[in-house]
């Protein structure tokens, strides 16, 4: 028999652990998860004990002990979190997912708030090299974004996040979403690759709206279920009974010491629904 569970996968601080961080974020995520699984497994003293920990309805891989947090005063840091909503996950779940993902980051860094939360919607991309005008978003899409965005506004009001960021939003998308917001986004993150062709209208619009255009190097589908599934299969011992792996969200966090430009902590959490075969 099998029962559905939530599993939270975590990488720990990957900034000082090596080559994984040289790849695109999807590879970086998979490689650093793999590395963290191996490290956790190598630390288990007895073969009968698992390094996967159950807390309530949720499994943690690896388990979470009291994290170290940051080494200096909170005010020294600029903490950015990027939340990837994944394709196929109902929009209605995003509210809970957002809070959940943020809680994991706050606990990992031992802070009570972050400076910037950037959200990434599934299935939209922004191609700086593409000169064709942004495609007009459908009403349904806009409704979805606006609904999700409200969660961020609430978090901002609660003081858990200072600034809100969007990603992959061209002018057409911004024009539709902005009237539906009460707290304006401070940031729009776009993928600029090697070349520096950012459409002039976007630069102009962002300037008018006081939205900072930031760059990123993430890919559109950060964690396809097939990729996670095969990663888990590599660790048959730990994840042998995991079936129908269905990733729900991925969150990336970075803590940078502002005045020195030094990245002190960077990592990911990913949450997936799985059926666990207990036979």
């Amino acid at each position, binding site marked *: 028999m099998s029962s559905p569970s939530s599993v939270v996968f975590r990488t*720990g*601080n990957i*900034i*000082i*652990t*090596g*080559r994984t*961080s*040289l790849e695109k974020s999807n590879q970086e995520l998979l490689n650093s998860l793999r*590395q*963290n699984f191996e*490290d*956790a497994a*190598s*630390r*288990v*003293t*007895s073969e009968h*004990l698992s*390094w996967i*920990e159950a807390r309530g309805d949720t499994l943690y891989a*690896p*388990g*979470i*002990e*009291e*994290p*170290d947090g940051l*080494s*200096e005063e909170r005010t*020294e840091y*600029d903490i*950015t979190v990027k939340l990837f909503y994944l394709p196929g996950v109902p929009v209605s779940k995003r509210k809970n997912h957002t809070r959940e993902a943020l809680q994991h980051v706050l606990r990992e860094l031992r802070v009570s708030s972050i400076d*910037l939360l950037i959200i990434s919607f599934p299935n939209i991309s922004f191609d700086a090299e593409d000169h064709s005008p942004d495609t007009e978003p459908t009403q349904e899409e806009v409704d979805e974004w606006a609904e999700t965005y409200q969660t961020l506004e609430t978090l901002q009001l609660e003081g858990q996040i200072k600034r809100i960021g969007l990603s992959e939003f061209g002018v057409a998308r911004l024009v539709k979403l902005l009237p539906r917001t009460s707290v304006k986004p401070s*940031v729009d993150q*776009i993928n*600029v690759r*090697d070349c*520096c062709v*950012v459409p002039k209208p976007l*630069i102009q619009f962002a300037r008018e709206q006081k939205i*900072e*255009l*930031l*760059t*990123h*190097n993430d890919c559109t589908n950060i964690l396809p279920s097939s990729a996670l599934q095969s990663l888990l299969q590599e660790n048959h011992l730990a994840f042998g009974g995991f079936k129908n792996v269905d990733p729900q969200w991925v969150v990336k966090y*970075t803590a*940078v010491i*502002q*005045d*020195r*430009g*030094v*990245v*002190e902590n*960077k990592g990911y959490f990913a949450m997936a629904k799985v059926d666990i075969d207990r036979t």
Partner: protein
Amino acid sequence: MGLLSLGTPLTWEEAKPHADLVRERGIEQLLNIWKKAKSKERDILLWGDEIEYLVVSYDEDSKDARLSLRQAEILKDLAHDEELRKAGGCVPSLQEISQKPGQRVPAFHAEYGRFMLEATPGAPYGGMLRDLLTVEPDMKKRRVIAKQHMTKDETPITMTSFPRLGVPGAFTQPYYPPHGPIARSIFVPDEIINPHIRFPTLTANIRSRRGSKVCINLPIFYDEKTPNPFKDPTVKYDLSDYPEDGDVRNGAAKDGHVYMDAMGFGMGSCCLQITFQAKNISEARTLYDQLCPLGPIMLALSAASPIFKGYLTDIDCRWNIISGAVDDRTEEERGLKPLNENKYVIPKSRYDSVSTYISQDPGFRPEYNDVDIHQNLPLKQKLLDGGMDEPLAKHFAHLFIRDPLVIFSESIKNYLVENNDNFENIQSTNWQHMRFKPPPSAEDAIGWRVEFRSMEVQLTDFENAAFSIFIVLLTRTILSYGLNFYVPISKVTENMETAHRRDAVLSEKFYFRKHVFPPRHANRSGKGSNTSPGGSISNTPKPVELGPVEDEYCLMTINEIMNGQSGQDGFPGLITLIESYLNSVNVDVETRCELARYLDLIKKRSNGTWETAATWIRNFVRSHPDYEKDSRVNVAVNYDLIKAAETLGNGEGKGTNLWKGLFEKR
């Protein structure tokens, strides 16, 4: 450049008896600063560059480009500029500087050569990535301001060495005959030396201490019509005004080489230096060590000086010329005679590569300090007794084997332990490729700093900005990832030699570390990177087995070091590492695109798409219609070369083809 105290300088014979006193006081001053400043914490990143210019003077009638000797007048003019004065002033040695917030007037300084000018940003750059975009405009502004205070025939150029310094005939404006009493050079007049009393004294005292003139031999670049074997025809063997005139009769000038005999040949070269403030002493020590192996790599990559004394040579960079030009070691110290008067045989000049690492990072292995260095042991003991740790005490005890070269009688009388003049006397006449700089005083707001000193100045401010920014980004990447570039220090010295060879950037290989990430279980300052559920899991990481040091490094091309090796396990490349760092921080679109231009220059210099300034200059000469294929850079070729350097320096050669080969136009 060090502080210019005024007073009565002592000749070498007068100074010698005070050497021990100056050293002892220097160590006392150092200990005083170290004790109070070692716990300084959380200083922010501030950094600055120093760019040196040659001031050239054209004679349009004879189509000649010579060195202007009007440094002092130009500085005076800069100091008197009403607008600059209102904005806070720009010549620290001549006026009180008070920078108003938001206004950043560049600062101008004198240098050794009376034909040189040094400029720095008026205030240091900050630690935000956006601040990097102010570097190139600041450099451009300096050039414009400098030019405004010169005559219409004069211009500042950023060329590492003046091609015709020391040729027979006129190469300065006005002309002075060579062979003055200070340098006693066959080739250059004493009038090329900054007349501030410190510099002639330094020049004379190096010569006196050494017991002969300095001696530099550069291999000639044999071209089609170069006489072979080449015997430097400009050497005069029959002079007898000074005892040092005998140097050449005793074989100072080697066959096949261009011979030079004065400090001005070295200290008249222009460099691009970068200084960073670290958050604390320990981070400064880390950066010192980690940038150390990069010194020779960046020297080869920034190579810009193939011509000396009117000849194309077979080397591409200045470093060893300066090294020889200030080499004050006696024959005994150079190992030519058994030790009698002197204490040590010293393998290197005062100006040379670093000989000892100083950090206490977990990545350091004692094997990396594989060169036995002389130390001033009694002074080292004082540092140890004062509480300083062994590696740092060793570093300073090594610097303090040198004699003070210039002592002012006033500074002997007016000694204060709270000052740093005695310390700086030794510290700032040890010109190694990295410099570890304590705060100027125990009370100072300035923190612990590290200076990166090996790079040659580039022809344009775009390139100078690119090299500066590359180094700054590299330090941020090193600190973020905890990178480890250690190779045995003897390999750094070897690399430094390699870096000089013609076209080393493309044709030579350098010792470089293969795996630069810390071991997987490494912690950042005692903080665990991996957490684990309690009870079932052991918290002690497995001890890492260290293999032989020889397995940690291999020979790599500069292209591999910068752009990476192929293969799963290959070195990722410094550019890749920096880009990965940039992907981990918030960068706005404009900044990212500008930084991409700078990184692209480094990338393409490394892979040969674009030429180093050295190659470009060499090609310019060799393809000039007036070049006679005999290695000589004559008046006509020099004139056009200097004009080209000027055109490139002002607006990157816009409207010409000059930039072709060097970089891509925006």
